[in-house]
């Protein structure tokens, strides 16, 4: 088995070099994504400016929610989205067979040979908005709460990467799975608003089978000391544990799909 500490940096370095071959397109991509998210957040801020609050959340709190959502998504998706979206094509074209026989973990190779630096625009916007919102919200920061916040972020990013992995892995068995990303992004869209504005069945769904409420709402509500529907005082612990739990499920699913992979030909 190849030594990972040598192979992973080499894979990442090669991929980044391939992207920086077209620096204009790369920078344009960062700027355009920054502009698109900025525009969406401006639209949401216009609603808040007109009505004062959304589900009891005022603009600085919503800004923290949006920035946490974007940062967790970009950290998780940089490790997974584009890589696993291409899984369907790899299965269909048979190139997955070549990856399976490489002397390296298949997941590690898929993830790090396509580590997406295209999320830089997302991360810059998210950090900027988060930096501003953290100075505006009423939170007393201690070392413990700061570490807890970072833990929430890592857990949320794990949910994104794990879910993307599961969708990609499904292509190993179903051949087609990209339409499932559209469902993911449906819940992803809902995850950037306070959960309490949605009907109860949707709240339950987003805390259980489609746990994207843990991607932003639960951790941010726990940070702000806001009541979380259904979870109550368990919100903080649930926000920390949800990422590792979904990751364990994703690992089991990934291994099951690899064991049952037969190629596109059946």
């Amino acid at each position, binding site marked *: 088995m190849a030594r990972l500490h040598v192979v992973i940096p080499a894979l990442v370095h090669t991929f980044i070099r391939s992207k920086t071959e077209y620096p204009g397109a790369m920078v344009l991509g960062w700027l*355009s994504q920054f502009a*698109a998210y900025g*525009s969406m957040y401006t639209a949401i801020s216009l*609603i808040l400016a*007109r009505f004062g609050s959304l589900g009891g959340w005022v603009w600085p709190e919503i800004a923290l929610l949006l920035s946490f959502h974007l940062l967790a998504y970009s950290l998780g998706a940089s490790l997974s989205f584009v890589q696993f979206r291409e899984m369907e094509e790899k299965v269909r074209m048979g190139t997955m067979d070549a990856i399976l026989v490489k002397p390296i973990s298949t997941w590690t190779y898929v993830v790090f040979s396509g580590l997406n630096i295209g999320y830089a625009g997302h991360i810059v916007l998210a950090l900027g908005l988060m930096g501003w919102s953290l100075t505006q919200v009423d939170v007393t920061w201690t070392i413990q709460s700061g570490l807890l916040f970072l833990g929430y972020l890592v857990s949320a990013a794990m949910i994104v990467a794990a879910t993307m992995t599961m969708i990609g892995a499904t292509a190993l068995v179903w051949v087609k799975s990209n339409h499932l990303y559209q469902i993911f*992004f*449906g819940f992803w869209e809902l995850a950037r608003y306070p959960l309490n504005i*949605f009907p109860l069945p*949707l709240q339950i769904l987003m805390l259980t089978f489609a746990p994207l409420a843990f991607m932003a709402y639960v951790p941010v509500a726990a940070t702000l000391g806001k009541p979380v529907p259904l979870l109550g005082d368990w919100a903080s612990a649930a926000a920390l544990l949800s990422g590792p739990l979904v990751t364990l499920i994703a690992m089991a699913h990934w291994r099951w799909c690899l064991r049952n992979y037969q190629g596109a030909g059946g």
Partner: protein
Amino acid sequence: MKLAAYPAFTATAFQSRLAYRNQVWSGVFGELVFMFARIAIWTSVFSTVASDSVDGVTLPQMITYALLAGPVLYWDYSRLLRDVGTAVKSGDIAVYLLKPLLYPAYMLASHTGNFLFDLLTVTVPVAIIIGFTVGLVPPASLFHGLAFLAFWALSFGMLFLLTTILGLAAFWLMTADSLDWFFNSIMILFAGGIVPLWFFPDWLATIAGNLPFAWVSYYPAAIYIGQLDPSQALTAFIIGIVWFAVLLAVLLWLWAKARHRLIVQGG
């Protein structure tokens, strides 16, 4: 090429979409989630005000506006942008230049087929589901209903022209990947699809209300729910036609320039 031949491209585009049935149900799901998110947001913020209406608009009208300004009027232009970008990047555009057709007209015919497919398989089912579960309001009057149809046609043409003009920039940039995001950022704010212009600050509403993007979502949907009286609607329609003519002239000029600018990589 004779004009009568172009509808064949519309029919072909429609039929080719029938092969991708998974996209239909995932498309319906995506639009439903989008709509339920909008409904939840507007229901939540309307509950914070004491009266039944805000700026003369009730919650059912706002939900109807959200459906019209979103899934109905704001069709999937990304597909068109991607097609133009891919044709330029792959060099396939040279094949279109050899054919006896006008490429922008071909794109119009083809994407009319895509639009009709999405309308029948995704938008109409979503509208029916929303209508039965949440409720939608009829047009404010017969005039507003008829005016909406005219504005809908204008909206389709306007979004087609804006997207194709942007797509032709790929002739110079050699990529259309980022253009989708840039265009989306403009449309989110200035088309009025997410937030209607009457909720904007006055200065921003004045700017947005005079830019062509507002004719894609805001004016048609606002007219349907009766936010504009007949004289205002007529004025808006005339200005919209002027914008349409300007954009059409820009497209034809840009296409003439782009054809002579074409570089196929490696050739």
